[in-house]
């Protein structure tokens, strides 16, 4: 399919807009899509509520083709490695890749390990807050168990302890 705007390049991005219950589709090439998107958001910039509404509509209406294009281009700005590069080699480029590729790594970790929450050791020197947060996590799961077992008195104790630790975290 050719791009509906320039009618030169292959259309690879597909927008679906729903305005007044009417569905319109727009098929654009990569380049026109970028321009279109910029212009679109610029036009509505001063008018905050409408703009806000429309951008959220935008991000939701972009279909999976667009999604795939985005992922292919995902690049860690710290080490310059792309997600595709990682997918090929199995190796991330730097420790910041974990945050930069987070949305794709989460499901991957879940698949590999069955979990995405570390519950082990943390560095001692950097660790004051980690330690408290870990304690809170442990207490909370204990709390759930106690409630399920209807041991409310004990549960209240644990809940108070959680509150105490949470206050300490905010200090």
């Amino acid at each position, binding site marked *: 399919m050719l791009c509906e705007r320039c009618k030169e390049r292959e259309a690879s991005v597909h927008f679906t807009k729903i305005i007044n219950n009417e569905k319109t589709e727009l098929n654009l090439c990569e380049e026109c899509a970028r321009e279109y998107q910029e212009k679109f958001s610029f036009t509505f910039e001063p008018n905050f509520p409408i703009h806000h509404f429309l951008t959220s509509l935008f991000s939701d209406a972009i279909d999976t083709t667009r999604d795939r294009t985005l992922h292919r281009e995902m690049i860690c700005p*710290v*080490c310059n*490695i792309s997600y595709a590069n990682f997918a090929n*080699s*199995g*190796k*991330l*480029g*730097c*420790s910041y890749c*974990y*945050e930069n590729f987070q949305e794709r*790594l989460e499901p*991957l*970790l879940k698949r*590999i*390990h*069955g*979990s*995405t*929450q*570390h*519950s*082990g*050791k*943390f*560095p*001692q*020197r*950097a660790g004051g807050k*980690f330690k408290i*947060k870990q304690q809170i996590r442990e207490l909370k799961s204990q709390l759930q168990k106690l409630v399920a077992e209807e041991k409310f008195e004990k549960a209240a104790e644990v809940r108070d302890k959680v509150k105490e630790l949470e206050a300490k975290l905010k200090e």
Partner: protein
Amino acid sequence: MLKDFVTTLNTKWLDASGPHTDVVISSRVRLARNLKDLPFPHLMNEEHDNQLIEKLRTTIDSQNLVKKTGPLEFTLLKELNSLEKRILVEKHLISPEHAGSSSGGVIFSKDQSISIMVKEEDHLRIQCILPGLQITDSYNMANTLDDLLEENLDYAFHERYGYLTACPTNVGTGMRASVMMHLPGLVLTKQVNKVLTALSQVGLVVRGIYGEGTEPLGNLFQISNGTTIGRSEEEVVTNLSSVIKQIIDQERVARERFYNGNKLHLEDKIMRAKGILENAKLMDSDEALKLISALKLGIDLGIIEAINLKVYYNLLVAIQPAYLQYTSGQRGMGPEERDKKRAEIIKEILRK
């Protein structure tokens, strides 16, 4: 000139001490760690290499660390030739991947119970290896060393994901705890596949140490934790340890049953193995691994009394190709020369 720390068999895990050495050869814990402000090893340039090495040199020289772990020795991989690196692999002190590298280095404690691979897949792979079933002790050692290193190093750590590693399969604790087991009883009674399949259902990973296929050479198996995020180090180690203890029991029962049912045949098999080891002129490494497995079984069952278990441990390393070639001082040995040398070295060790 031969390098002493390469050739020595006075490596802690080879001294055959520790509990349950009749079934468990060794226990190893490995922690993967990275520094926050360097790219992962495969993206490091020479300047990064130097930064990492400098940082580590000062770290391992810190007074507090030396006081608690004893002195640690840093060797750059480029100071070692390929044969020397392969011997370190044969002694389970570095990985085959690391032996293939020429940048990075390796850090040893005097008895080699501690080894740290520098710039393997991660900046640091802290490893502690002890003889017998001492997985908790290995973990405690690695853990203490990790704390001491962290006093001077800024680790890459994420609140949610834990210790960050180059490959997401190691993220979280960064820990791989593994136990090397000798399971001739389960192999002889054809139960080994059943037992090992059950392990995968509790999240453990099994592989043969030498050879491929269902019957690994020498009846040696390595069992380790499969995942690294979601459970604490203590949980993983405790779980592994309790599973290993069950396998130990099963192996002992299998040996006893088999021995009682096939007394003469088993004794014959073991004494023949001993006879061949003591007299052969040529010995390839597959045959040697099989025969020393029988020898060990003989020692454990009390069929062979005059030979110490430590002999088996020494043989396990001394029959390996790189070790043979290096200690003979000959370059480019052919297969026949190697088999001749292997037969000689086995005789020599058995005579001790």
